[in-house]
């Protein structure tokens, strides 16, 4: 049980949460809460495997996974934005429908043969940095490096660019944005699509890079919901999201790896394939999510920062709203 290897694997599995969390940040920043992340991830994972198997090209799989999840996110977008239904319910509905569709279309995938996977490689100079190099830059999937680029790019986009300003405006004060000639409804549709596409990328990251294969609902095993929890912990900020995602990734890996060695810190390992401890270890990520939320909620209450003001509110032109 080498801590460097665990952290390295943790960064890889944290990348899944990273994509899903940043996607949800885009959607929520625009004012739309989308609870369908888990389902969209499953659609992404299923599409990525199917396309990669059929075409032999994993890149095409990733691309179409993003497209498929983006398109399915529009079910929620239409119902929540145009039909002004309750966003909580609409997101749940999307989640159930997407999971069901992924299960039906993915039925035969668990018996599929060898998958063409995405390439893994080391970044030349950076992998030589002591400690950080092996953890972040050695023998990682190409999608892990995409995650490193996405985080600052998303932060820059949200805080420093003009479209990013519009994004925040429609989530904070849609009526004012509308008065400035910004098409609130269209942009919200777009950012829900972005969120869906990134959830699809997260799903493809699982099925083509981190833990390849199709295990029906166990493919995502609640990571979509953890991502939604992380958005609150991250207070809608991509950099904090990356921190949370990698911590969670490392935690998930540690739970797998801690049961392996006979010795832990020179002592007999109490977790060694022990069924008593194994199930309690399985609870840890979910218990941690609750703990994160408790901490996040206290901080958010104290600092009065956090959710976009119009999050969850449908915008109706002409009605006095936020």
């Amino acid at each position, binding site marked *: 049980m080498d801590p460097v290897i665990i952290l390295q694997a943790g960064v890889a599995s944290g990348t899944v949460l990273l994509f899903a969390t940043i996607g949800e940040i885009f959607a929520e920043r625009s004012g739309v809460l989308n*609870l369908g992340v888990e*389902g969209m991830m499953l659609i992404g994972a299923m599409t990525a495997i199917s396309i990669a198997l059929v075409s032999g090209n994993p890149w095409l799989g990733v691309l179409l996974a993003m497209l498929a999840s983006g398109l399915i996110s529009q*079910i929620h977008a*239409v*119902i929540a934005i145009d*039909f*002004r*239904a*309750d966003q*909580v*319910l*609409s997101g*749940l*509905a*999307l*989640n*159930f*429908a*997407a*999971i*069901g*569709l*992924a*299960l*039906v*279309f*993915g*039925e035969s995938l668990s018996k599929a043969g060898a998958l063409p996977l995405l390439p893994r490689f080391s970044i030349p100079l950076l992998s030589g940095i002591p400690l950080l190099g092996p953890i972040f830059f050695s023998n990682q999937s190409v999608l892990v490096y995409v995650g490193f680029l996405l985080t600052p790019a998303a932060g820059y986009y949200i805080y420093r660019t003009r479209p990013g300003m519009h994004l925040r405006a429609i989530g904070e004060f849609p009526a004012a944005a509308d008065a400035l000639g910004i098409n609130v409804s269209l942009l919200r549709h777009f950012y829900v699509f972005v969120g869906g596409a990134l959830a699809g990328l997260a799903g493809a990251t699982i099925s083509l890079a981190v833990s390849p294969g199709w295990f*029906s609902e166990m493919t995502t*095993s*609640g990571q979509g*919901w*953890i991502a*939604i*929890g992380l958005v*609150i912990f991250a207070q809608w900020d991509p950099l904090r999201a990356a921190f949370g995602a990698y911590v969670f990734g490392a935690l998930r890996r540690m739970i797998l790896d801690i049961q392996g060695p006979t010795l832990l810190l020179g002592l007999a390992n109490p977790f060694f394939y022990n*069924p*008593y401890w194994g*199930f*309690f270890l*399985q*609870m840890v990520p*979910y*218990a941690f*999510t*609750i703990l994160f*939320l*408790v901490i996040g*909620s*206290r901080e958010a*209450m104290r600092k009065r920062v956090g959710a976009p003001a119009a999050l969850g509110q449908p915008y109706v032109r002409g009605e006095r709203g936020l």
Partner: protein
Amino acid sequence: MSAASRPGRRWSFPIAIRVEPRMEQPRGFGTAVSLGAVLVALLLGAVVLEIVGGNSLRAYSYMLKASFGSLGVISDTLVKATPLILVGLACTVAFRMRLWNIGAEGQFFMGAFGASAVVLAPLVPPETPAWLTILAMMVAGFAAGALWGFIPGILKARLNVNEIITTLMLNYIAIAWVNFFIFAVWTEGGFQMTRVFPKTAWLPRLADFARQVPQLRGITLHLGLLFGVVAAVIIWWVLDRSKWGYEIRLTGDNPRAARYAGIRIALNTVLVMMLSGGLAGLAGMSEISGVVHRLQGAISPGYGFTGIIIAWLAKLNPLAVVPVSILFGGLILAGREIQPSGVPKMIQGIVLVCLIASDFLVRNRVLVVRRTPEA
């Protein structure tokens, strides 16, 4: 004058769709729209089945026969409907107050665990008479489910922690907790199940009376159905007739008004979550005591999640939960043998999407109007 020759005015499509809020509804309109939504959902499901290479018409007729085709399968459908009624009521109670309890699945597992503890821990001595054992199991199942509702309830009330995510996370924790007991503590020879409960812990079934009434042979319907129906009537009375129910509904519809009216929202949040969790826990108790007769891993094909859809299809009306649950019981029963195995889940999901979308038609009139040149 043609539109093109007018400066500053673009040509526009001659027909427009106008949406205006519906002021009054014809009687039964909401129900009709819901039924229409379910039909559209079944149609969409059929399209998907055809795409994956299935024969949708045969699949649907098979499902209908497998769930309502004979007295025996109708009994099985009612057995499946029993936990659904209870989880449907659990969701109804919480949703009326706009508390999004998505944790009925975990509360169901905890209820099954609590009821098992009565027999296996054991909390009551083995020679306890059947009626007392079953009563103790009901109380323990309800209490364990209520505890699983109390945690998100108190976090919401005290710290305003989002109950959707906490209830969901608690689902996974509950399942791991039950797995711990069936694999490690109460395991039967290393298998993923406990030993079979003694007969005193079984809910009476109609088949038990086959010696007196031979027609009842093989009819697995158990007393749990009565729990469900009685609970539906009680919950209906609580929500629609009692003062507490009025507080719950007012808080759900208009929290600000409720606060001005002096309603203790935090207290009610905790109590409603506990009642909701307890009902789901009772569903778990009824399932292991009436059907499975032991604690094991695969006791729920997602009952807790189906409860959400049932509550919504029943329009949060506790009495309507009963017939809707019977329909979904049939769907789950038929789904056991149908391929691909995800079909019932998919149909449930599409039904919920269509239902929520169709609500738009109930709230609004959609008119197709001709655009006049002046408009």
